[in-house]
């Protein structure tokens, strides 16, 4: 049975039901306010001046012409930052405004406030900046070799980490090797960066309405740069139009607050699409060399690998992204010996950081390409080679960490392989049988492909993905639950970015407390941190916090009922919407039992501690893991280099599906992003300049590019997870990319008996046809 068959009803909106989103209808009716949709009386517009050079020294900045334009109320530069001049998620190495040097095209240099966006544009044009243009560092290998001058006082190496595991010299009868390249991907959320900052009357504080992934971390960084105590900086989550990692770092937050404090009026900033490409971090472009040693029957003996991640101009989360990549270099497979070296380096490219999959996407393309080479070298099929090496619970990572998570890798692979193949031949839609529709052919509306030339290929991929934060970071979450008169109210600072935590939170409260009505308080910094909406962590962490807060309230409710009826509270339980005595006849509706009382509990939920890696890359650095497998069926026109992904099948280890419809949404959405990376999405930089900062030139999958998705869930509740549920956001976008590329390789092999290695993604038509 596929997932689509499982989604039948919203039920009572409890755990396991496909409850509808509480914000769904206001989004469909257009009344949900995103961070770009917040008009406020007296507000002026803000805008940002950005560097046109990848690397240059700022000789002088003259703002006088801009300030003289009627309607312009402020022009700010580095001189106007009252607090810490830099910010950053791990290391504060990125200037609020460039002072001495600009280090990438798009680096903020100044900001203006004015009465109209058009006035802002003219003011930006009127700021005179004199640059001494310098030779940019664009080659990561030059950064590693130390042949390039340091382009930042912190140096050019963001992280260097080695992992030594077992016998690093172990060899196998079969050796396969490859060098894989991954292009720079953009998160391309639709809701552009936007914010409103409202200064306090005394000018000593500010309220920021912002689309972000982590309110409290933003507040910490903003307050430091503003030179204000954190309690004078209040953040409110405005509607978030997607995130995918791109809202984890600071973009317009500090600028907007600085402008508001300077002009003493509310300030709105809304990025354009072109500016958005410059304004947030991207998925790291990477070069990964791997050599696998295996026995003749295909069992991995040793893994040698070298990872080079181009972090761009500033540190962001490069160190953590690299850690994820190298510590999961083995993929979801047993691997007794390994030597892995990882580098994340600084260049004058666009800064890179978090994007869905966070380092594992790059590693997975390499290890899965290798598994197919290994399969070919051993005469095994792609499914068999993966099954032979499939990791199980209790196996060790190359870091020495024992995988304690439920690890149903073999089951994911088997169930993926067992899902139905496309029912119709090349170019034929399932609901219009017997007729070739050109729109279903590679190249689609271009009407160029000919069915006679098209080959259909099949490819597989499998992945491991760590959940939550790593290396000793205590990424807790906080939730408050109030029960009064049969209504539960939840308060948390968890960023709802579209993933549906607001739905899950209500489902948890309904299940634990037996209530029907669950109201959600404003998501803001007026409660403790929820940590970031990233690393597939919020269902586990904030779900755990909401669950714990609701349980604490339920205990109070049971004590209250028990006292009134003279029984032991331990005998009480929730059954549907009633409190029941499990050893007697008592049954009272929760609404009645909580009438006239108010229980109010706040709980912090922490996951188990993790630790840093030692100098040999050994240590229990991760919290938990999820697994997934994908199969792609792809039609390829080998002569034209055109690709049509026909179907993607997947079995995903979810622990327990709290909302199957929501899980399916994550699966289909993740597959779309993985497909984009496989065949179309790449930020092109030439000489340090982005060449495709628009949706005309940066290609995103459309309705017509998306294949049929056939999904099934592997539900083996994880005992470590508070609700048995693993994070489901990232795995869908990880192994689908190598599966699609493997399917293209398969089609090309059928075409000429040889095929092509296709070791770089995205695969371009020229890679196929030439």
């Amino acid at each position, binding site marked *: 049975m596929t997932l689509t068959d499982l989604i039948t009803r919203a039920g009572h909106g409890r755990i396991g039901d496909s409850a509808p989103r509480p914000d769904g209808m206001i989004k469909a009716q257009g009344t949900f306010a995103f961070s770009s949709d917040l008009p406020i009386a007296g507000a002026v517009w803000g805008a940002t001046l950005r560097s046109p050079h990848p690397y240059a020294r700022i000789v002088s900045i003259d703002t006088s012409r801009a300030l003289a334009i009627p309607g312009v109320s402020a022009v700010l530069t580095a001189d106007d930052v009252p607090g810490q001049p830099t910010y950053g998620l791990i290391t504060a190495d990125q200037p609020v405004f460039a002072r001495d040097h600009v280090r990438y095209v798009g680096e903020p240099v100044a900001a203006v406030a004015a009465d109209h966006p058009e006035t802002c544009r003219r003011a930006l044009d009127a700021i005179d900046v004199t640059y001494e243009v310098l030779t940019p560092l664009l080659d990561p290998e030059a950064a590693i070799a130390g042949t390039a001058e340091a382009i930042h006082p912190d140096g050019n190496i963001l992280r260097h980490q080695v992992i030594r595991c077992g016998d690093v010299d172990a060899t196998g009868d079969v050796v396969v090797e490859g060098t894989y390249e991954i292009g720079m991907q953009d998160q391309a959320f639709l809701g552009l960066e936007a914010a409103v900052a409202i200064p306090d009357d005394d000018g000593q504080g500010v309220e920021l309405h912002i689309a972000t992934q982590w309110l409290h971390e933003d507040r910490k960084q903003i307050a430091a740069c503003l030179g204000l105590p954190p309690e004078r900086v209040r953040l409110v989550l405005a509607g978030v139009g997607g995130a995918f990692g791109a809202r984890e770092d600071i973009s317009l937050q500090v600028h907007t607050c600085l402008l508001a404090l300077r002009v003493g009026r509310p300030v709105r900033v809304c990025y354009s699409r072109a500016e958005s490409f410059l304004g947030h971090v991207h998925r790291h472009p990477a070069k990964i060399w791997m050599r696998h040693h295996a026995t003749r029957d295909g069992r991995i003996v040793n893994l040698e690998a070298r990872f080079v991640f181009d972090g761009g101009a500033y540190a962001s989360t490069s160190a953590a992204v690299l850690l994820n990549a190298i510590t999961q270099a083995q993929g979801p497979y047993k691997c007794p010996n390994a030597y892995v070296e990882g580098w994340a380096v600084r260049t004058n490219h666009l800064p890179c950081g978090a994007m869905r999959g966070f380092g594992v996407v790059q590693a997975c393309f390499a290890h899965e390409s290798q598994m197919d080479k290994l399969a070919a070298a051993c005469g095994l099929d792609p499914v068999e080679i993966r099954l032979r090496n499939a990791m199980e619970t209790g196996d060790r990572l190359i870091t020495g960490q024992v995988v304690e998570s439920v690890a149903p890798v073999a089951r994911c692979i088997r169930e993926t392989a067992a899902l139905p193949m496309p029912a119709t031949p090349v170019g034929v839609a399932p609901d219009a049988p017997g007729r070739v529709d050109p*729109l279903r052919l590679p190249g689609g509306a271009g009407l160029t492909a000919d069915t006679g030339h098209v080959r259909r290929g099949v490819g597989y991929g499998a992945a491991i993905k760590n959940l939550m934060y790593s290396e000793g970071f205590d990424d807790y979450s906080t939730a408050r639950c109030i029960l009064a008169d049969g209504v539960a109210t939840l308060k948390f600072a968890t960023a709802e970015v579209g993933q549906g935590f607001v739905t899950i939170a209500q489902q948890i409260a309904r299940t634990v407390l037996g209530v029907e009505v669950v109201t959600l308080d404003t998501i803001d910094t007026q409660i403790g941190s929820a940590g970031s909406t990233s690393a597939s962590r919020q269902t586990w962490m904030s779900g755990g916090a909401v669950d714990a807060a609701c349980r604490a309230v339920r205990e109070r409710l049971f004590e209250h009922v028990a006292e009134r009826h003279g029984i032991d509270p331990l005998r009480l339980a929730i059954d549907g919407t009633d409190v029941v005595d499990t050893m007697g006849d008592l049954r009272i509706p929760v609404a009645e039992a909580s009438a006239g009382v108010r229980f109010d509990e706040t709980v912090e939920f922490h996951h188990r501690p993790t630790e840093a890696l030692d100098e040999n890359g050994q240590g229990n650095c991760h919290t938990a893991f999820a697994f997934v497998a994908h199969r792609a069926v792809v039609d390829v026109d080998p002569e034209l280099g055109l690709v049509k992904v026909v179907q993607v099948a997947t079995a995903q280890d979810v622990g327990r599906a709290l909302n199957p419809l929501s899980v399916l949404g994550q699966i289909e959405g993740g597959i779309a992003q993985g497909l984009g990376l496989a065949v179309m999405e790449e930020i092109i930089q030439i000489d340090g300049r982005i060449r495709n900062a628009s949706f005309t030139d940066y290609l995103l999958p459309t309705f017509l590019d*998306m294949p049929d998705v056939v999904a099934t869930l592997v539900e083996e509740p994880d005992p470590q997870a508070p609700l048995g549920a693993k994070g489901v956001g990232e795995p869908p976008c990880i192994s689908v990319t190598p599966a699609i590329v493997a399917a293209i390789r398969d089609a090309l092999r059928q075409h000429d008996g040889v095929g092509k290695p296709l070791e770089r993604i995205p695969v371009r038509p020229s890679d196929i046809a030439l």
Partner: protein
Amino acid sequence: MNETYHLHVNGTRYEVADAWLGESLLYVLRERLGLYAAKGACEQGECGSCSVLVDGELVCSCLVLAASAVDVPITTVEGLAEPGSPTDVQRAFVDAGAVQCGFCTPGLVMAAHALLERNPNPTETQIREELSGNLCRCTGYGRLVAAVQQVAVERGRRSS
């Protein structure tokens, strides 16, 4: 150059006073008339988030100068239905799981209504082709296709 002109939006005549004539219809709808349902996400007609009807035609309002849309009826998502009384398309979007972050949703609601007006019984490929001017980054489009199919079936059932 600033001027005053009038727009007919969702059955109401609005005066746009002393406005720069370079403003797009999207900007004027949002920032001058306070109708924020249409969204801006690409400024070049690639993503469809700003889709509205101008004289019955589905257009990207970011590509239309507001001052050129005078004397014709304009319909935005706000004009489709009152809050709390959703259209069948809006209801299906929510029920089918077609809404995640929701930024593309108003534009897709407009496009889906326009599609079903033109073609009450579209095939899956027709749905994909006709809506391919609207980008969604969250859903992978599967639930959106399901929602449109659901409306087509429901309307067919009602009319037969």
